[in-house]
């Protein structure tokens, strides 16, 4: 079943002679249980790709569907809800709030989503081997620990789609591999659709599919 479908996506900025095409005819479908990587140098359009896939900005052309919701037809408020409910973000600089302990990061999501996530977040923390860190603040964690918490945070409200933006950028190789393996396991075991954007070739070996993006053009690797 397709979780994310992108159909003929174009994104342009500016107009006339300042026109810049950031994405050209992107077609992509990601199913539940799939872990795909998108690789490209900086400036290739991968950030633009991710912001469109995450509903943070609208494409200039084309349609995008998440869990069968047509994002191009939703208003800002509805897109906000989709981001909150249907997508988990794992960001480069970790998406943790500096003044919340690990446990409180989950409590915030719990409060905002009005559902009990206690059991789920406890299971996640244990499976990611960070249960012992639950009373620590982000600054007391190592880079690898922080990204594992960030992954748990992205998963805790059980979204079908995970968007990971350079999740290994600030990590050494061992920790980077570990984080990518966690993402792959989540996709395969818990049937998540996971898209990871990276510039590091070595991180793609656990992916089911790898795409390259260069100057806004998308191609299977």
């Amino acid at each position, binding site marked *: 079943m397709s979780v994310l479908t992108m159909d003929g996506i174009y994104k342009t900025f500016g107009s006339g002679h300042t026109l810049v095409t950031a994405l050209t005819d992107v077609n992509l479908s990601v199913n539940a249980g799939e872990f795909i990587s998108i690789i490209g140098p900086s400036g290739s359009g991968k950030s633009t790709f*991710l912001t469109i896939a995450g509903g*943070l900005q609208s494409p200039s052309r084309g349609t995008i569907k998440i869990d069968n919701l047509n994002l191009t037809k939703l208003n800002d408020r509805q897109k*906000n809800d989709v*981001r909150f*409910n249907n*997508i988990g*973000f794992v*960001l480069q600089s970790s998406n943790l709030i500096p003044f919340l302990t690990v446990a*409180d990061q989950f409590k915030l999501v719990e409060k905002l989503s009005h559902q009990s996530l206690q059991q789920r977040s406890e299971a996640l923390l244990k499976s990611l081997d960070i249960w012992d860190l639950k009373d620590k603040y982000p600054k007391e964690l190592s880079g690898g620990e922080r990204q594992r918490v960030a992954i748990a945070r992205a998963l805790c409200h059980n979204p079908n789609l995970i968007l990971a*933006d350079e999740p290994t950028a600030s990590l050494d190789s061992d920790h980077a591999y570990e984080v990518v393996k966690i993402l792959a396991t989540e996709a395969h075991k818990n049937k998540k659709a996971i898209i990871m954007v990276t510039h590091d070739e070595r991180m793609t070996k656990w992916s089911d599919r790898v795409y390259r993006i260069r100057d806004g053009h998308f191609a299977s690797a």
Partner: protein
Amino acid sequence: MFLAIKEMKYAKLRYFLIIGIMLLVSYVVFMLSGLANGLATGHKQAITDWDASTIVLSSDSNKIANASMMTRSDLTRIQAKRKAAVGLLSTSSRLSGHSGKTNVSIFGAQENSFVVPSLIEGHKYSNDHEVIISANLKNDGYSLGDKIKLGNDPHAFKIVGISKSTTYSIQPVIYLNLNAYASLKGTSGELTTAQQPISLVAVKGQSPEATKITTHKSDAKLSKLSVNEFITNLPGYSAEKLTLNTMIYFLFVIVAAVLGIFLYVMTMQKISLFGVLKAQGIKNSYLIQSVVGQSLIVSVIGVVLAFILSVLTSLVLPAAMPFTVNTSEWLLYGAVLIIVSMIGALFSIHSIIKVDPINAIGGE
């Protein structure tokens, strides 16, 4: 509120400091309010004690009691059930045999008139050489039975009664009868009783509109005014009140600015965090609520602490300092302080709304 409270617990020092500033500004506001009321009370206490509704003065006085000149015969021109002729004089007083002088406000009035205060000690005066003093003169060593000299009057006056502490023009008050008053004015000898001077007539339970004054051709013109208008025109009363109140109003603006700037700086430091939170679908309204909530918490704690501190301070202030705790005014000012703090937080809302969650992606 979850986010707001957790952040305050995490960054304790910052929020302690801003609560401290809130506390100090609120404390100054309460203290100024206490002083403004203390001074106001010091000016008017003896008048409010009368519980009168209408004051009649000579028209030439321009509503100033000290400048008003009337005669005892004028009392009959005023149609009212309860009316009292009052003479007013500011002079100095000293205990016989002592040289230390105290400034006092002297009221001349018939001993059975309603303006004469009820006593906590002794009895009312029954002749021209007896007086009632207010209890605050006890601080200067005055007590029942003592003889005092007033101004440059050759007579000695005996203290026969003491009323509760009261002031007029921020001076303790002495009551004596109208003959004695005339004598202090230096006019008793050559005048008939009807010609003796008084300053004003106080009327109880009857509005200025309802109070009729008969004026024949040869009579001096009289003006009637409400007690509130009379008090507003007491020398110095309005000016002092306005000065202190203006300081209070400025402090309201300062509170809004200080708290607004603080929260704005805090917001600016969290812009990238807000971007990340918004990317994750957390709504503007929650983030705004969080900042306004922090402002509410900071201001409520600051104001409550300042309130407690002000009450404690009022207990240890020296008696000579005019200071009156007006709880309802403090509550009102406290509420205003809290509201302006919240208004200060509004500066930050625009910046929160402006944060574009796109910036959270790509690490820029």
